[in-house]
């Protein structure tokens, strides 16, 4: 049977309707996608107006975006008012951060998704993107004091890639698009832990050997010169390098398992802490004081030792040394019980042995370290000041209960005024202002 003209016209009308419906659907789909993209951009701070520069979307998204990423507790900051004690610096995850040398207000950080390096002036809120070289999915960023950085990520083979670079100066010809090139080189694969060796402007890292062990390497930033300073048949070590030149190697911790920390002295391992369950370790620069934590039997304990031959003191706060940072407060003039009024000798300058620790308000796990390292649990921390010399602790900040802060990788500026840290819950960057302590003087 041949189709009639009427049938044909029905088919045509139906086809036209279907076509209009499809186009409509496509329109709404595109519109929805655009809204999503806009919302995403807005969350990163993209201005609603069109970018005025011709530099391209990525540049503008990030630079303009990051300005609005600087957040001050609900934007309640008023002109002239002091900044809040706790500030959220970024909304998006960061891979690492460092304070500018000698400053308390400039904070450098690497964005996790892009590997871009930014500087944030925490007093003014001004943020500047410093680099424009893309390092997607940066898991960890390690900064040195001179502006060099190591960006670490996992490649498609599951290997650790570590790019060691230096930020080009603003006058450099490499500066483009408002950001500078990050020039540098990839270091060898599978560096399991790396820190800048502050005293020698080198890198100190642990790299696994083919037979399951590890070597500790001192290397130039370009990886061209390297020296093995430590070897072990075990691979699970992490290094610590202090500004006074001391180097430590610590066996990675596990709840209930004996942990060990050693100082490398003249090529030998000198024990610092032995046989401590679930050991986390934090040595102090310029003194032999240490803080160390233990995790065993379902509970946490923190200890302080003022010097090498002193007895360890159990502190009345329960946390891990990973959540602590030694204070960089300047030296205070020592007070004496019987001041010599007519003495012409200046009173000795004594650096107080003070640390700041984030302390979980509740610990819900019997195997805290493992669960915390795996991201299976998070804590809500308050900040405590630990005076090791005086054997006292003092609560200095407890965040709002609706804003849990799980402190990770805390660092302190050179002036001892701020602590920057990552909130492990979402990897955002935060800043805590420490009230400067009044300095006591002798008469």
């Amino acid at each position, binding site marked *: 049977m041949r189709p009639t003209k009427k049938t044909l016209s029905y088919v045509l009308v139906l086809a036209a309707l279907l076509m209009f419906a499809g186009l409509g659907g496509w329109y709404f789909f595109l519109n929805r996608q655009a809204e999503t993209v806009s919302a995403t951009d807005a969350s990163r701070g993209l201005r609603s107006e069109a970018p005025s520069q011709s530099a391209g979307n990525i540049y503008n998204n990030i630079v303009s975006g990051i300005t609005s990423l600087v957040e001050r507790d609900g934007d309640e900051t008023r002109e002239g008012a002091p900044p809040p004690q706790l500030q959220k610096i970024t909304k998006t995850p960061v891979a690492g951060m460092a304070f500018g040398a000698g400053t308390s207000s400039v904070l450098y950080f690497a964005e996790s998704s892009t590997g871009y390096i930014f500087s944030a002036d925490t007093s003014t809120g001004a943020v500047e993107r410093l680099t424009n070289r893309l390092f997607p999915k940066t898991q960890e960023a390690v900064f040195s004091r001179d502006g060099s950085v190591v960006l670490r990520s996992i490649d498609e083979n599951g290997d650790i890639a570590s790019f060691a670079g230096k930020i080009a100066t603003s006058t450099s010809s490499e500066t483009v698009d408002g950001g500078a090139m990050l020039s540098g080189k990839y270091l060898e694969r599978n560096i399991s832990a790396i820190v800048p060796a502050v005293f020698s402007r080198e890198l100190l890292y642990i790299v696994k050997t083919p037979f399951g062990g590890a070597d500790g390497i001192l290397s130039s930033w370009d990886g061209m010169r390297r020296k093995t300073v430590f070897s072990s048949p075990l691979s699970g070590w992490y290094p610590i390098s202090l500004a006074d030149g001391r180097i430590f190697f610590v066996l990675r911790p596990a709840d209930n398992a004996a942990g060990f920390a050693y100082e490398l002295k003249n090529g030998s391992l000198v024990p610092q802490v032995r046989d401590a369950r679930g050991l986390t370790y934090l040595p102090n620069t310029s003194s032999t004081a240490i803080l160390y934590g233990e995790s065993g039997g379902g509970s946490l304990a923190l200890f302080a030792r003022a010097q090498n031959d002193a007895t360890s003191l159990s502190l009345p706060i329960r946390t891990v040394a990973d959540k602590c940072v030694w204070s960089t407060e300047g030296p205070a003039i020592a007070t004496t019980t019987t001041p010599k009024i007519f003495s012409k000798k200046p009173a000795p300058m004594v650096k107080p042995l003070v640390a700041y620790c984030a302390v979980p308000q509740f610990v819900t796990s019997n195997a805290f370290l493992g669960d915390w390292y795996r*991201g299976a649990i998070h804590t809500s921390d308050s900040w405590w000041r630990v005076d090791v010399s005086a054997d006292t602790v003092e609560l200095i900040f407890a965040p709002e209960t609706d804003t849990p802060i799980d402190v990770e990788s805390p660092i302190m500026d050179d002036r001892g005024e701020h602590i920057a840290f990552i909130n492990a819950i*979402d990897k955002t960057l935060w800043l805590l202002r420490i009230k400067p302590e009044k300095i006591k003087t002798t008469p």
Partner: protein
Amino acid sequence: MGTMMTKEGRVAAAGALIILSALFLFAAPAYAQFGNTADGRLFLSVSPEYPGPNEPVLVSLWNAIVDLTGSDITWYVNNKVFAQGVGMTKASIAAGPLGSETNIFATAQTRDGLYASGNASISPAEVDLLWESDSYTPPLYRGRALPSAGTGVRAQAIARFKPAGSAQLPERDIMYTWKRNGSVVASLSGKGMSSAYIRAPALFGTDIIEVAASAIDGSAGGRARAEISSVEPVLVLYENHPLFGIMYNRAFDDTASLSDTEATFAAVPYFAEAENPDDPRLIYSWSVNGKKIPSDELNRSELTVNSANSNGLAQIALSLTHASNLAMSASRAWRVSFGSGNDIFTGFNPFPALSE
């Protein structure tokens, strides 16, 4: 160095104190140690057998022939009288610091006038026993790899022997004896054998690993032990985010909620016998809402779920076994709600403006 003599000999014995130094010069070096063991001579034993630096050491005297309980006993430590008393057959002495040698000399005079003496020296040493497993942990994991059945344990002994007045003994001059549950593992023991690779304890088992280290000349020794338990592999699920990669900081809890309608999940088998999560020996069995999902051959540890045409609720279940290790098995399930506008499982949303 012990002697047994009659009363006449006591005159000579009275000068013993004067010549103690000389005697020590000829004393055979020993760690924790005994003087002469021949019949009729004083025998000194120390506990612990391998004392560490500055540790208290209990030294005991005995003699098979002489009744010491009624004897006048004098203890000398480094040529000085340390303790004296009738029947004082035990003395608590502190070992010196690393690198020191503490010389102990004891004399006993019986009611019958017999005289006996013996000596020992203590050279404290330290031995640390460190261990880890070769089980799988992610590349930047900050904790230690723990053993599970089928994996191995790498152990390292770090011994510190410093004979008085000389440098620390090098590893090659130290004899290591490894024991597993009390039995010597001969293949791992020997001169300079400071490390060992041992199979992990059986499923749910605990092994006691011990290492004894002694100087080849017998001048010092120490030991250490560790109780090592096997754990079950821990199966953890993370989001493999297109911008951030695998978000190791946020493990999915049993119940989770995501703002997106599509997500890629990455399973990480902590402490499994594997080189990486996609190790061909690992067998992943994924299911979503009870329906088995064939996994991607290249990324078998990952699963992408798109909830666009569903009610947004996914019951994700994962079972993990091992092709050659029958003891390895782990399974877990997660209830994930997609497109809920908020990441409830964490309160985490890297782009909070989206949900504001």
